[in-house]
C-alpha cells in the first residue's frame, strides 16, 4: 500500500510538471493555432535563468533564494516568449505552417545559444537542503519535491483560472479560443490577448523549467526535448485550448506512466502512446476539447 501511494503521488507530481509545460501550449494553440516548438526553448531559458540567478546572483542556498530562482525562471520564460511572439510569430500572422516552422528554428537557435554560453554538460541546480527529504503520509515516505511540484502547479492553475475567468483580457482569450474570427469581427483587439497568452505560457514553462531542472538533476540546452513531446501529447489527449483538459490529461498521463513503469519496467512511455492512439481513434477532439482539429 505504501509503495502504491508513493508511486501515485510521484505520478501526480510528474503530471504537475507536464501540466506546466502543456498549459501554455494548449492556450497558444487554442487561441492562435500555433504549434509552438519554441515552447521547449521557453522551458530551457527559464531553467537557465533560474540556474544563473541561483549560482551567480544569489549564491546562498536558502528557501528564499530557491523561491526567487523559480520566480526569475518564470519571468525569464515569459519575457522570452513575449520576445519570440513580437519578433517572429506576429510577422507570420495566419500562416500556420510557417509559424510552426519558424518556432522550430527558434528552438534550435535558442538551444545553440544556451549551449554556446553555458556548455552542453548538465549543470547542477542548487536546491535547498530539504529537497531530498521525505515526509511520512500513512505508511509511505513521500519525497518533498513531489509535493512542491503539485503545489506550484496548483498555484499556476489558479492564476490561469482567475485571469481567464475574472479579467477582461481573460474573457477575450476564452472567446478567441471558441471563435477567433467572431471576436475580431466584433472589433475587439485580439493582439493583446495573443501577447498575454504567450507571456503566460512562457511563465508557466519557465517555472516548469526550473522545477524540472530540480527533478531531473540538472540543466542542459537540450533537456527540454522529451518534456515538450510529453507536453504535446498532454495537449492532444486533453483537448486543444482546454485548460481543464490539459490538467486532467497531465494527471492521467503522469499517474499511468508511473504505475506502468513500476509494474512493467520500461513500458510506461509505450502506454502513453497507446493512450494517445486510443484518444485519437475514439475521441479525436481530446477528453475535454470541443471541436476536432
Amino acid at each position: 500500500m505504501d509503495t502504491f501511494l508513493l508511486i501515485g503521488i510521484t505520478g501526480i507530481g510528474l503530471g504537475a510538471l507536464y501540466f506546466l509545460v502543456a498549459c501554455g501550449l494548449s492556450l497558444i494553440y487554442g487561441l492562435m493555432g500555433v504549434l509552438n516548438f519554441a515552447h521547449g526553448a521557453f522551458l530551457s531559458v527559464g531553467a537557465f535563468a533560474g540556474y544563473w540567478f541561483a549560482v551567480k546572483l544569489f549564491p546562498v542556498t536558502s528557501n528564499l533564494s530557491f523561491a526567487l530562482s523559480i520566480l526569475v525562471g518564470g519571468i525569464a520564460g515569459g519575457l522570452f516568449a513575449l520576445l519570440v511572439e513580437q519578433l517572429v510569430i506576429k510577422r507570420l500572422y495566419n500562416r500556420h505552417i510557417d509559424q510552426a516552422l519558424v518556432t522550430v528554428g527558434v528552438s534550435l537557435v535558442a538551444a545553440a545559444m544556451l549551449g554556446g554560453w553555458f556548455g552542453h554538460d548538465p549543470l547542477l541546480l542548487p536546491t535547498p537542503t530539504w529537497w531530498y527529504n521525505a515526509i511520512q503520509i500513512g505508511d509511505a515516505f513521500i519525497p518533498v519535491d513531489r509535493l512542491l511540484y503539485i503545489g506550484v502547479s496548483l498555484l499556476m492553475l489558479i492564476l490561469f483560472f482567475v485571469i481567464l475567468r475574472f479579467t477582461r483580457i481573460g474573457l477575450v482569450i476564452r472567446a478567441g479560443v471558441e471563435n477567433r474570427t467572431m471576436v475580431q469581427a466584433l472589433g475587439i483587439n485580439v493582439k493583446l490577448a495573443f501577447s498575454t497568452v504567450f507571456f503566460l505560457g512562457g511563465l508557466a514553462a519557465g517555472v516548469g523549467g526550473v522545477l524540472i531542472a530540480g527533478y531531473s538533476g540538472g540543466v542542459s540546452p537540450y533537456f527540454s526535448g522529451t518534456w515538450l513531446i510529453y507536453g504535446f501529447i498532454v495537449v492532444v489527449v486533453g483537448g486543444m485550448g482546454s485548460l481543464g483538459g490539459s490538467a486532467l490529461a497531465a494527471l492521467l498521463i503522469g499517474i499511468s506512466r508511473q504505475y506502468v513503469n513500476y509494474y512493467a519496467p520500461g513500458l510506461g512511455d509505450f502506454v502513453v502512446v497507446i493512450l494517445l492512439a486510443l484518444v485519437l481513434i475514439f475521441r479525436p477532439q481530446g477528453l475535454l476539447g470541443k471541436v476536432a482539429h
Partner: protein
Amino acid sequence: MLRWKYSRQLLFSLLAFLVAIPLLPVDIFRSAGFQQTIAVALLYGALALSYDLLFGYTGLLSFGHALFFASGAYVSVILINRAGWSLWMATLGALVFTIVLALLVGSAALRTTGIAFAMVTLAFGEAGHVIINRNVGGWTNAENGLPLNADRIPSIFVGVANTHYIFWLSIAILVLTYAVVWWVTESPAGRVFAALRDNETRVSVLGLNGSRFKLLSFTVAAALASIIGVGMLIASGSAAPRYAEANTTIALLLMVILGGAISRWGAVLGGVIYSIAQTRLQDLTQSGFLDGLPKLIGGPLEEPVFILGMIFIFIVMFSPGGISGAYYRIRLRYLTNKSKTPPVKA
C-alpha cells in the same frame, strides 16, 4: 515553362560525374573520407526527398518520418545479425515491416489534420525513439546502437578500401528514390496529393477519398525512408538511436525548407548541403578563428546549429521556397523580361 530546356541533360551529366568521382585521378576524390562524407550526404539528400513527398507534395507536416528511417536500419540489422538473413532479404524484410508500421501509424495519425497531425506523428516518432533507447525486449542495445556484423554482408561493402562501393550504393539509392518520387508525383495519384495540399475540401467535393491518398503518400515515403535506412546502416556500419530522434525529422524539415519544398532537386540539394554543412561547420568553428570574440557572441557562433537555425528562420520569414524557390523567381523574372522586349522588325 519555368523548367530550363537543358535541365534533364544537366541532371544526367551531374549523375555521370558523380558516378565517375571515385575513378577520377584527383587525390581528394579518391580519399575514403571524402567519399564517405558525400555518400552520407547523398543518403540525407534522398531522405530529404522522401520527406518532401510528404511535406512538399502532399502538404503533410509529419514529425515522425525518422521512425521509418530508423525502422529500416534497425529491422535489417536485427535480421542480418540475429536471424542470419542475407542483406537483400533483410532489406525486403525491413521494407515490409516498415510498410505495415506506416499503415498502422498513418491510419491513426491521419485521423487528425494540419497542426494536430504534426503533434501526433511527433508522439509516435518519439515512442519509437524511446523503445529503441530503452532497449525494450533486449532487441536494440539501447544508446550504444547495433553494429552491423560485417561478415554477413557482401564483402564489397566492408573496409575502407571499398568505400567507393558504398559511394555507388548511395548514388543508386538516391536515383531509386528520385525515380520513385518522380513516378509517384507525376502519376494521377500524385496530382491528387498536390490537390490535397492545395485544397482538401475541393478534393472531397470531387468525390475522392482524401485520407486514402494521404495514407498512400505516407506509406510510400516511409517505404523509401526504410530503404535509405538500410543504406545508412551500411554506410555508417551501425544502427544508432539518434536515427529515430525527433531531431532527425527536424533536420529533414530544415533540409527541405533550405532547398525548397516545391521541387525535387531542391529537396535533394538541401539535404546534401545541410549534411555537408553540418560536418564542415563543426570543423570550421572549432578551428579557433572565433577565439578572439567575446563569449557572448563567439559561444553561439561555435554551434553549427545556431547558424543553420538562423538561416532557416530567415528563409521561412523572408524567402519562402528556399534555394529552388529563389532560382525559379529569378528565372521567372528573366523570362518575363525576355518576352517584354519588343520584337525586332524585319
